[in-house]
């Protein structure tokens, strides 16, 4: 299990632009409502499409937990992974797909499209996303892991921690 999600990485403006363009194309082709990219540790990377009207932070942590739990179930029955998951609702459904073993693409869709369409279009976009993310991880791995933030950031954050939690 070591490796997946074990090291730090950063998400830059140019990554965002490339990924957003891809996701917008995917939404147009598939007629899905919106997509969320969630890091396997439960952190939201980005969203595209209709702005979700729910708590995306909580959603991301639950989606990652859902995917991780299913990963373990897969290995128990002798599968390497379940590369995608589908949850069907009465009106809204969601499809989750693995991207490069580090990120999860969550697609929310309703009856304006079909599962078959989502499945086909997701497969294609996941391939392209995986390529971008692999580049990003390689870049993070190659970058020196020295100081990422200046001392002033730490000082300011510590002051804020004292202010926020100080008198409670």
């Amino acid at each position: 299990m070591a490796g997946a999600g074990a090291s730090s990485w950063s998400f830059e403006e140019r990554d965002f632009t490339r990924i957003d363009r891809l996701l917008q194309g995917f939404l147009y082709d598939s007629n899905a409502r919106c997509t969320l990219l969630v890091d396997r540790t439960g952190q939201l990377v980005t969203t595209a499409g209709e702005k979700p009207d729910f708590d995306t932070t909580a959603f991301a942590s639950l989606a990652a937990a859902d995917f991780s739990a299913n990963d373990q179930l897969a290995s128990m029955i002798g599968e390497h992974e379940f590369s995608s998951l589908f949850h069907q609702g009465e009106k809204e459904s969601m499809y989750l797909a693995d991207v490069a073993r580090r990120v999860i693409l969550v697609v929310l869709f309703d009856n304006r499209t079909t599962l078959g369409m989502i499945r086909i279009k997701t497969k294609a976009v996941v391939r392209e996303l995986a390529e971008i993310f692999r580049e990003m991880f390689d870049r993070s791995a190659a970058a020196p892991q020295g100081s990422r933030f200046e001392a002033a950031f730490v000082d300011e954050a510590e002051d804020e921690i004292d202010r926020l939690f100080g008198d409670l």
Partner: protein
Amino acid sequence: MSMINYASREINCKIVYYGPGLCGKTTNLEYIFEKVAPNTRGKLISLATETERTLFFDFLPVDLGAIRGFKTRFHLYTVPGQVYYNASRKLILKGVDGVVFVGDSQVERLDANIESMHNLYDNLSEYGLDLREIPFVIQYNKRDLPNTSSLAELEAQLNPNKVPHYEAVAVRGIGVFDTLKAVSKLVIKSLS
């Protein structure tokens, strides 16, 4: 594994509360949820059984606000403490940036504390992490109960590396924010 999102200018850090069953991990989060200003925290999500025992995890995001242009947020998680939920515990540790071990001070829970601490070492090692190298603090909870081990004994049994430790009565909030402050500062320091 903090993720720095330069596109949305966000830093998210994951802090996990670990410890044996019924030691007070969820109580810590509930107290934090209750006391922190509503505009600086999200919803407290609890995946629990009908008897309110944690089944998978509790989750509470706390916003530190914008620090030098970066929206900084702590994601607080608890794990299920009961021994047989180890698969779930391991999953929650994925990508952890800091750990709080909540020990139960009652004499009869000493063995459970030791077992849970060993389990924490083992599960972290599966992610290639060493507790001696990541932000880590210990909270000795339930200090108000009559049948508690002495602090010296708990320290001897659970804290060989002398990481920061805090005495607590989490149901009354005593020590809860001292612990959170300590671990969050260590996590922030580890970013620099």
